[in-house]
Structure formats: structure tokens, C-alpha cells
């Protein structure tokens, strides 16, 4: 993959480091949301990518470059602080309810009243909007389950077995053509989009980058293991019903060939949510009851980020249709 174009001072300096230069990577604390700051999220995404597939011509040793690692930790600190503040009430509510961790996780997702993105995609979204959605999700879905693979060596016993079983399915269950990342690439092709890994990094929103970055943050920091497991459980649990709606939306606008990925996820995630919540997180908390708040924190992060991301998309689409009424009418 080529290095995508930077979009601000921070990502510019990260790209400079990747090109062999040594700019200062000092960060001054900014104002406002770092999740919604595209420059911050792209800088983080660039650094994380060095631990996945990297970039053409970029020195492999930069993955552990002290300056880049220091910058990553600094940005992660800001992201984590924002997420902890935003999710505190949700986590406290769940803890007050008490009960089995699997039930708590599934209930938290079920109780969530996020923006109705999936319902909109099913009933109202235009073909370009569905393409836009597929494009925005592509950065995350083309590396689906890769961040969670980093959790595996840190788990033991039942939790490890459960995560491995779940990931075996995500990674195709022994059949390359069933690799979920490949199914997503096929959906992109069917929607006349570029299936290349990272092809749309330059185009997607800050929130789409933040969504995948948070998975990398949880995957690459062992201290956030429990949050990573909770995040995975909520991610799976918030996918089955929306996947069905998205598949119906794609069918509605004639993108029938793009639907199999989402069809697959209706049945797959009905299984995965149970295994991730009850077996992975259940075993983790049984082993160390003190990590329950962290598991719930990870889960609450999914809901918080999904809500921001859905709001961003739906606001953008509403503004576009308001701007181009004659185009819509014709």
C-alpha cells in the first residue's frame, strides 16, 4: 500500500518520518474531540498500520521507532481519556444492574438507542449513500478481526479457546474464499468500488478511522486486554440485526451482489455475540472479577463510536440532499 496523503500538521510529520526525515513530533494539547479530529486519527492510523501490513518502501524498523511509539502513546492517552469520560455513565449504569457479564454486555447493546443508521440504509438510502457507507466501513472491514488477533496470546484457558474458535470462523474456517475480509472486498467490487486494502483511507471520515484505531489501541496495549474483549463482544452483538437491514438495503437499490457479506454476518454474528460475550468475556471475568468494569468500558466504546459515526454519516447525507434538491427530483 502507498502512504495516503496527510491531512494536517500531525499526519504530515508522521508521513515525513516514514519518508526518512526527522521532524519534531511534539504534540501540543488541542481543544475539542480527538475522536473527531481527522489529523490525529490519520496520524494514529498511519502508526498502527506499521504493525499490520505497512507501506511500500517504508522501513520495517519504524514499527518500533521510539519517536513514533512515543507519539502513539501520547495520542492514545488523549483518545482513551475522551472515551473514558464519554462512557463513564454507561459503564456505571451497567455495573449497578449487576449480574452475569454475558447478560450485562448483551443487555447494554440491546438497550442502546443509537441513531437509526441501519434502518435508514434499509429503507431510504440512495445507491450513492450505500456506496458511501461501504466505502467508510472499508478501512475497518478489510482488516476485520486482525486487531483482535493481538488479544489471543494474552488470554489463557477457556477465554483463549473461545476467541480462537470465533476468529477461525472470521478468518474463513479453513476456506480462503470465506475469509470475511475477502467477502467484504467482494462487496466493494459488486458496488463498483475499489477493493484494495486501504484504498479509501484518504477519503473516509475521522470517525471511520477512529473506529478501527480504537480496536488497534485495545489490541496493541496489554493493559487494555479486558477492554479489547468487551469491545469485541459489543462489536459482534451490535452487528447481526443491522447486517440484515443493510443486506436488505443493498438488495433494494440493486446491489444484490454486495449483500452476501452482510448476509453472512447475520448468522455468523448471532453465534459470535454469544461466544464473545459469554465465553471470552465470561471466562475472563471469572478468572479476574476485578476486570468487569474494563470489559464494560470496552463495550461502551463501541456504542459511543458507532453513535458518533452514524450521526456523522446521516448528517452529511441530510446536508447533501438539502443542497441538491433538483438533482434528487430529476
Amino acid at each position, binding site marked *: 500500500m502507498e502512504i495516503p496523503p496527510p491531512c494536517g500538521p500531525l499526519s504530515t510529520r508522521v508521513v515525513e518520518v516514514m519518508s526518512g526525515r526527522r521532524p519534531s513530533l511534539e504534540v501540543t494539547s488541542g481543544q475539542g474531540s480527538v475522536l473527531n479530529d481527522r489529523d490525529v486519527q490519520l496520524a494514529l492510523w498511519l502508526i498502527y498500520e506499521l504493525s499490520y501490513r505497512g507501506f511500500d518502501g517504508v522501513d520495517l524498523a519504524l514499527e518500533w521507532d521510539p519517536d513514533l511509539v512515543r507519539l502513539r502513546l501520547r495520542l492514545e492517552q488523549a483518545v482513551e481519556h475522551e472515551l473514558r469520560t464519554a462512557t463513564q455513565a454507561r459503564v456505571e449504569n451497567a455495573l449497578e444492574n449487576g449480574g*452475569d457479564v*454475558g*447478560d450485562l454486555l*448483551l443487555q447494554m447493546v*440491546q438497550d442502546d438507542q443509537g441513531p437509526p443508521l441501519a434502518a435508514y440504509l434499509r429503507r431510504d438510502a440512495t445507491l450513492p449513500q450505500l456506496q458511501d457507507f461501504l466505502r467508510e466501513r472499508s478501512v475497518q472491514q478489510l482488516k476485520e478481526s486482525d486487531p483482535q488477533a493481538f488479544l489471543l496470546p494474552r488470554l489463557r484457558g477457556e477465554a483463549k479457546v473461545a476467541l480462537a*474458535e470465533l476468529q*477461525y*470462523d472470521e478468518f474463513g*474456517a479453513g476456506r480462503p474464499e470465506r475469509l470475511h475480509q475477502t467477502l467484504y472486498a467482494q462487496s466493494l467490487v459488486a458496488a463498483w468500488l475499489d477493493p484494495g486494502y486501504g484504498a479509501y483511507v484518504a477519503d473516509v471520515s475521522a470517525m471511520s478511522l477512529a473506529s478501527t484505531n480504537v480496536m488497534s489501541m485495545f489490541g496493541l496495549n496489554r493493559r487494555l486486554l479486558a477492554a479489547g474483549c468487551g469491545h469485541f463482544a459489543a462489536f459482534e452483538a451490535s452487528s*447481526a*440485526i443491522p447486517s*440484515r437491514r443493510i443486506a436488505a438495503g443493498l438488495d433494494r437499490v440493486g446491489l444484490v451482489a454486495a449483500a452476501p457479506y452482510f448476509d453472512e454476518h*447475520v*448468522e*455468523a*454474528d*448471532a*453465534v459470535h*455475540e*454469544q*461466544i464473545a460475550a*459469554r465465553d471470552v468475556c465470561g471466562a475472563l471475568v471469572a478468572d479476574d472479577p476485578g476486570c468487569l468494569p474494563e470489559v464494560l468500558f470496552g463495550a461502551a466504546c463501541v456504542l459511543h463510536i458507532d453513535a458518533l459515526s452514524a450521526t456523522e454519516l446521516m448528517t452529511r447525507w441530510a446536508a447533501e440532499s438539502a443542497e441538491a434538491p433538483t438533482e434528487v427530483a430529476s
Partner: protein
Amino acid sequence: MSSLRVRACPHGPLLVRGADAVVDEEGTEHPVTRPVVAVCVCDRSARKPWCDGTHKSVRTSAT
């Protein structure tokens, strides 16, 4: 697969491991294509015999 294992999830589906196929009420055989499958028990799934998560919206509307 060596052995068949079925587990009931609270308020949710049956998780079935090690099955080759699930036979529905009409006698139609549905081959199992993944390591674990979730079989619907609430009777509301649009993808029976497989769970599609509908039990969650049923619970929400009931409460």
C-alpha cells in the same frame, strides 16, 4: 467432527458444535457450514433454523 455438543444460551439460541446438519420441522436438512452454529429457539428468526438475532427485538418490544 468427533462429538456433538449443544449449549443453551440464556434468552438466546442453542449453540451447536460438531454437527453436520440441522433438520428442521419440515424435515429439510440444513448443512452446517461453520464451526459453531446458533439454532433459533424463539421461533421468530427469519432464517430458521438459524438464529438471526431477532429474539433481541422481541424481548425489547415485550418489556
